[in-house]
């Protein structure tokens, strides 16, 4: 009985949070003299309006899923990987490099390019992991620094590779995640097969954490290093492993951009933001694989759909940003809503 209502609550909480966020967002729009109804219709159409929008929304969700997984996986082992951004950037570059530099049949080329992205991300996360494991240096600060290093080093690499240019070569067809089929059914959107990979990774993370001895160890170490050591687990190994896997997810997110959305890489003036949003995505999803999907869908949809609010409802960018932030904020405050609901359901039971 109570467990039933609990499950109900678990589903209701995020929903209500989102609605609340949108409500407050509406108030902001009204106060600043814009029509929230028009605005939200535009948002809705921006997300689901037509096959093109749907395709692009999914395309936008894809890297968020992977970035979310990266952050979530680290958190489950008690590590805060704030360096997903940098791992994503190196992953993007590595994937594009392999995708452009070699001539191979698709069955080899595409997987190879994807793996390159994952490997680069993993490598970028390995160092913070190593420093944490061997010298107890806090991963947050190292990963923040590694973000900037990634940004500038990759820019420099692009220059060197392109002989002073501002962007890499385009990847070969054989390394592309895009397909005419997907384009045709979504009216020329950039939807690519990455979403399938992303979902596979969700399953993989779930499997790793919930089914394997490795996952058991990672979680144990995350909760209590002393007891884990007592139980014969290798603390250092697990910390490094967790960072490396997390980095691999992040690198894949980059590969999605490189092999799917863009097909090449420009020198960057700043970060993509996906890595940082990934933090919110992961925690909104309570660091569970399924939760990450929820978080990514929420973030991706809002982020892409929002583009249509200035386009179709003349609502300024900034207001849209405020609305998005509010939604995130309210979803984060789920506990308050949970409290309310449980009070209500208690009253019901009382009767």
């Amino acid at each position: 009985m109570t467990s039933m209502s609990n499950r109900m609550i678990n589903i209701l909480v995020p929903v209500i949070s989102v609605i609340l966020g949108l409500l407050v967002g509406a108030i902001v729009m009204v106060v600043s003299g814009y029509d929230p109804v028009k605005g939200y219709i535009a948002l809705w159409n921006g997300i689901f309006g037509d096959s093109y929008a749907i395709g692009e929304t999914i395309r936008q969700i894809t890297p968020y899923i992977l970035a979310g997984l990266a952050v979530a996986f680290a958190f489950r082992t008690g590590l805060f990987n704030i360096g997903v951004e940098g791992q994503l950037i190196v992953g993007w570059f590595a994937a594009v490099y392999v995708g452009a530099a070699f001539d191979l049949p698709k069955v080899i080329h595409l997987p190879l390019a994807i793996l390159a992205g994952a490997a680069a991300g993993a490598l970028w996360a390995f160092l913070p992991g190593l420093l944490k494991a061997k010298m107890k240096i806090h991963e947050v600060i190292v990963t923040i620094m590694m973000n900037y290093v990634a940004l500038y080093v990759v820019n420099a690499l692009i220059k060197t590779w392109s002989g002073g240019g501002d962007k890499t070569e385009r990847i070969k067809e054989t390394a592309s995640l895009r397909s005419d089929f997907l384009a045709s059914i979504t009216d020329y959107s950039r939807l690519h097969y990455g979403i399938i990979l992303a979902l596979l990774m969700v399953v993989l993370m779930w499997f790793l954490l919930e089914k394997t001895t490795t996952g058991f160890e990672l979680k144990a170490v995350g909760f209590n290093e002393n007891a884990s050591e007592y139980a014969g687990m290798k603390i250092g190994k697990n910390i490094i492993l967790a960072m490396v896997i997390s980095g691999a997810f992040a690198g894949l997110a980059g590969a999605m951009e490189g092999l799917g959305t863009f097909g090449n890489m420009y020198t960057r003036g700043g970060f993509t933001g996906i890595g940082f949003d990934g933090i919110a995505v992961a925690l909104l999803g309570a660091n569970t694989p399924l939760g990450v999907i929820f978080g990514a869908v929420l973030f991706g949809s809002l982020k892409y759909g929002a583009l249509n609010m200035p386009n179709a409802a003349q609502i300024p960018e900034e207001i849209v940003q405020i609305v998005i932030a509010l939604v995130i904020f309210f979803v984060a405050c789920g506990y308050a809503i949970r409290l309310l609901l449980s009070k209500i359901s208690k009253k019901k039971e009382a009767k």
Partner: protein
Amino acid sequence: MEYVIEMLNIRKEFGNFVANDNITLQLRKGEIHALLGENGAGKSTLMNVLFGLYQPEGGEIRVRGKKVAITDPNVANELGIGMVHQHFMLVENFTVTENIILGNEPTKGGSLNISAAAKKVAELSKQYGLNVDPYAKIEDISVGMQQRVEILKTLYRGAEILIFDEPTASLTPQEIMELITIMRKLIKEGKSIILITHKLQEIMDVSDRVTVIRKGKGIGTVITSESSPEELASLMVGRQVIFKTEKGPAHPTDEVLAVKDLVVTDSRNVEKVKGLNLSVRRGEIVGIAGIDGNGQSELIEAITGLRKTKSGSVSINGKDITNKRPRQVTESGVGHIPQDRHKHGLVLDFPIGYNIALQTYYQKPLSKGGIIDYKAIDRFAEQIIEQYDVRTQGAHEPARALSGGNQQKAIIGREVERDPDLLIAALPTRGLDVGAIEFIHRRLIEQRDSGKAVLLISFELDEVMNVSDRIAVIYDGAIIDTVKPLETDEQELGLLMAGHSRKEAAAMQAEEGDDKHVQ
């Protein structure tokens, strides 16, 4: 006769689990009132209600006849109620003084006046004979000292009613004696005490009355002098309890554990084990008797691979395991019931079931080829929970929610079920009720009888005397003597533990100027 505290028909629920079910407890002024109950009976919960940490679902609390609502520890403090918690409430990286003054700090010109506070602490500690160093950091002092800091906290706030939740569980005999004298002093000062303990002898020694609860229900209150340990035990457990564990003679065979000239340093790189030699054979229980801090912890950690040795060797069944990783040690046939169940024994945020599988999750049948079979884990856990009478709402309940005693039973189940050649039991009965103690002692003896070697570390003389076949006395990092329980008595043992040779001991016992208090 006036009551300073009246807890009437208190009810406390956790979710749909009832931890306190209409319990009544009345504390008279100037009495030491014992609260007795099995592990998980609801003692700590009841006291946390009195201290304002939990809000009761039912019942009422009267303080000095006045009905009160204790919504917050502040309120309790204002009412003159102080509590020494089962799990200490001390900030590890603070000094003694900082911990004591926290909440009402003396100031001079806006800034902390530590020196003044320290002086007051020193005075108090002198007045009650607590001798704590006001400037010591909590993480650096012994459990006994931390205990006394907790007491000082309550006194510093001028508490009139003191709650002691299992104060003696983690104390050495010496420390217990000191604590008892302290409690008597407190009573003389006109204070009243509620004492939770599982040690019936202590209850008989110090308490005036005893309230017994069983499985969350109040059983009743008896006058200590009109009762007996046997009666109390059966009231608490609901059946007869045998105290002296029956066991036949030991038949030791070949050597399992051999420790040779072992030298181990602690985390501050101070030598704690100094060339120690020890041998445990199949079919015997060797008890290590000693005062806390003589190298017991370092010895265990060195054997089990949790701490690197400086020199010397450790071998199991003739196989050298010196400085091997913990897992290699476990797999070479060592079971380990760790001294600190929260730090090493359990992952508190894991379900109790996972914790029961903590040593074997990677082996068949719990997992195959790196894939865990959680059904198998559940089955295994349920079986241990069943066999070892772990009181829990199920294998999926987080270990954190179990009472101390039941957490310990789970650990013991885990280690014994692996049926190791050597079972190391470090303070295995700390904080356990008589029933559980009896149960665990029987398990240890079973292991012995089935041809295993058992190494028991304990601060409790009677435990060492009852359970071991040989007693190795550890002092200053070395085994200074080995005696047979039947050929010694607690007093001699006490002297040995204090570093005297057996001759000296005999001499000291001979001369009738016997000073009860062992320094």
